[in-house]
């Protein structure tokens, strides 16, 4: 029996075949088919795909986001020496999806850690202190089924906007 070739996570480009991507969620399917490349061209986001060549087994889309200091409660930032115009950078995960044939292989966590590593690298290379990773979920069941394993916690009343601190991720990697 032939062994499946190993998957590499690389930046989505024109050589990748995305038209047949299917993960059971129409929004996630259409996102990579219709928008991922154009959003990358426009500089909105970057999509990373897990692939052994041209077929796509899964993907994660990331972009920059930020928390303006002016939105922090004043009493909490007093005395910290943070400039008023500063914005605490975060990495935003827009989409993450695993194709039907690759479920249960651990690819979802691999893609999540790829995004986390980007945040960790940005923190060390830019020196701006990427603050953490945030994302939105539409299906609250996914919080328990998937995202809680990464120590995400909700930061909005509805429980759909999730966040994990960069230091938590760094410690998990032993950094």
């Amino acid at each position: 029996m032939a062994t499946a070739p190993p998957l590499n996570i690389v930046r989505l480009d024109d050589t990748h075949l995305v038209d047949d991507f299917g993960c059971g969620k129409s929004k996630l399917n259409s996102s990579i088919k219709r928008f991922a490349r154009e959003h990358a061209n426009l500089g909105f986001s970057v999509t990373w795909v897990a692939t052994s060549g041209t077929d796509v087994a899964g993907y994660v889309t990331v972009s920059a986001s930020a928390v303006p200091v002016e939105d922090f409660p004043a009493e909490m930032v007093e005395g910290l020496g943070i400039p008023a115009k500063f914005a605490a950078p975060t990495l935003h995960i827009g989409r993450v999806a695993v194709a039907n044939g690759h479920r249960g292989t651990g690819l979802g966590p691999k893609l999540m850690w790829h995004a986390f590593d980007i945040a960790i690298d940005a923190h060390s290379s830019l020196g701006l202190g990427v603050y953490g990773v945030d994302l939105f979920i539409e299906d609250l069941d996914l919080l328990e089924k998937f995202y809680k394993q990464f120590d995400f916690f909700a930061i909005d009343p509805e429980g759909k906007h999730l966040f994990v601190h960069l230091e938590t991720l760094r410690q998990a990697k032993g950094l």
Partner: protein
Amino acid sequence: MQDKLKTAAKPTEAFADCSKPPQTFEVIRGDGARRLLECAKTPPAPSQRLIDSAKKS
């Protein structure tokens, strides 16, 4: 001027879709910002599950 803007700013389909929150460029405000700052002051230690996940990936 308005007409000029209408014709000039013809977004692509992707651009139009991206303007709908909460896909990108989301700003974290209010209680969310408070929780983030609390978290920044004392970042939570990773769970064993997260540590295991980091080792596997």
